[in-house]
């Protein structure tokens, strides 16, 4: 176990290095993206440009620039090219918003999908099951930004049922925080509810024909206990791993569209804005932030999987 964790941490660091280097490289091959030009303003004179280049180290070789940027990221004085805002501070300010969105949505989609999966499996082949299965596919087929925009327009702007975008910190007003997040949570969850309920449904239908479920019935357990202790629990094992991976993906950048549509001002929206302005430092920091969660959750899921399914051995 200890050896497994050490090895995985090593792998994580390698992947994070590769991700950050790749991101840096992507933005350094952009010829039109010379940050000095943009920082100098509208009519830069050559002297000004040269000063900026020297000051920001744009004349150094790419790997030196990369190393310096990385060093600044971890010492916490990484500045944006465009706004002179400290990137790490900005991330710290925005992260809670993204966490609130991702965690809430993850809980909602898991609970909803479990309920729907159970319901459709119990009615497999009947009308309710078939129509819900189609609905789940509709959910998978809708772009989140489209659903979000329409929700925002109709439920928010036109009918005024929910606030029209924005975010209120929990500490300011818990109710408003919750109220503002209902629509973003829902929009973000729809896709996952569609995916998970279908996976769970088919898992349950596979599990219910297992011999050990028949054994459970033969033991004289109540139908409820058979369903929850034996069928549902075993059906959920693969879902839990999926959930961990998706939660990581959502935390690590999967909220970019939802945040933009609902103006949450979290890390995802920061990414969209920074990329649009070719502002490399925040993009780099955000990519690292995102990849960190993706890789971390991957590892957590492996450990979790081994914990809930004793047949799996960590290696």
């Amino acid at each position: 176990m200890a050896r497994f964790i050490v090895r995985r941490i090593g792998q994580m660091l390698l992947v994070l290095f590769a991700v950050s280097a790749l991101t840096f490289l992507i933005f350094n091959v952009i010829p039109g993206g010379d940050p000095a030009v943009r920082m100098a303003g509208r009519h830069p004179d050559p002297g000004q440009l040269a000063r900026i280049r020297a000051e920001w180290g744009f004349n150094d070789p790419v790997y030196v620039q990369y190393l310096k940027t990385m060093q600044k990221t971890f010492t916490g004085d990484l500045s944006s090219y465009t706004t002179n805002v400290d990137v790490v501070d900005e991330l710290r300010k925005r992260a809670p918003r993204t966490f609130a969105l991702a965690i809430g949505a993850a809980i909602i989609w898991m609970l909803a999908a479990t309920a729907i999966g159970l319901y459709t499996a119990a009615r497999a082949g009947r009308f309710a099951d078939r129509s819900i299965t189609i609905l789940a596919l509709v959910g998978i087929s809708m772009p989140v930004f489209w659903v979000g925009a329409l929700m925002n327009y109709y439920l928010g702007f036109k009918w005024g049922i929910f606030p029209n975008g924005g975010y209120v910190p929990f500490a300011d007003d818990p109710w408003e925080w919750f109220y503002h997040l209902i629509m973003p949570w829902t929009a973000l969850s729809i896709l996952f509810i569609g995916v998970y309920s279908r996976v769970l449904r088919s898992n349950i239908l596979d599990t219910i024909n297992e011999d050990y479920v028949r054994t459970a019935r033969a033991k004289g357990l109540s139908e409820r206990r058979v369903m929850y202790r034996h069928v549902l629990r075993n059906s959920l094992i693969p879902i839990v791993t999926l959930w961990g991976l998706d939660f990581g993906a959502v935390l690590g950048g999967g909220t970019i569209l939802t945040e933009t549509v609902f103006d949450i001002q979290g890390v995802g929206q920061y990414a969209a804005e920074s990329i649009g302005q070719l502002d490399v430092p925040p993009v780099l920091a955000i990519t690292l932030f995102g990849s960190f969660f993706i890789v971390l959750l991957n590892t957590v899921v492996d450990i979790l999987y081994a914990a809930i399914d004793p047949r799996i051995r960590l290696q």
Partner: protein
Amino acid sequence: MPEPLLSVRDLEVSFATDEGVVQAVDGVSFDIGQGEILAVVGESGSGKSVSAMTLMGLTRSPNARFSGSAMYKGEDLISASDERLQDVRGAEIAMIFQDPMSSLNPVQKIGAQIVEQIQAHEALPDAQARERVVELLERVGIPRARERIDSYPFEFSGGMRQRVMIALALSCDPNVLIADEPTTALDVTIQAQILQRIRSLRDETGAAVILVTHDLGVVADIADRVAVMYAGRIVEQGSLDDIFYDPQHPYTWGLLGSITRVDKPRPARLPAIAGLPPSLADRPEGCHFRPRCPHEFAKCTEVPPLEARVEGGQHLDRCWLTVEQKRSDREVLPGEIGLRSKEGAPA
């Protein structure tokens, strides 16, 4: 004969499937008394497993239809409510399944799985339930039971898992133990141990045992009485000696003839009954064995009742031939009984 413990009468089970209604069990009747081992023999699809599982309500589904009765202690199990059956399952009637590899929940410790059954029927604190599980595991011959109680099924061999299944079945001292092909998935040496275990448990607890099997070797080893099933019906029923030394139904002859024997010279070709069992969705009129039977005659288009034709009254069969015809017609090879193949029957 004293009042039987379990008395099954005219049990019928049918399922609605894509291919139409499948009559899996078609009028099965038998009695079983305390401490008795009844073997139900037949090939796959003869309805023996379905009959056994129906006694515990394990075949209940929206697509299944039942009729007949199974009286257990003055109560009909076939018409009993689901809730009532829950109390019966595991506590009064317990079952051992065919495949020990897949019959235990792979992600639960074996101890917990047995405790779960005990606590479903008795309000026993965890510690005491665990104590009982340790005793049970020791009783079925699992070494170091106290340590192994917290193992997972995948950490056991097939034979050990089947012992766990037996311990599970015995955990609430059932009066009836149904063993559905308990040894099919196991090695021959393990088979013998498991059978020995079932027999000694019968001796200790006085439980009635219904042993579902297609293996006549197992039957000869352990059974007191035998019921032979074919295409959903019992075609012959009697004591072990009746069935093995004076078989009345041509199908039984065929079954007995197909046993390979190590004490006899090996035949050039393994004897087999010609033809295939009928589809349960589309069976022949009258005697179901008719198309494969070399002794078929006009009367066979009528269903022969299961009744005593041999003197003594305890040996029942479903064949229109007279006892004398049967005794002279069955092919008695030196020391064994067989069935001629039917002329013109499909191989």
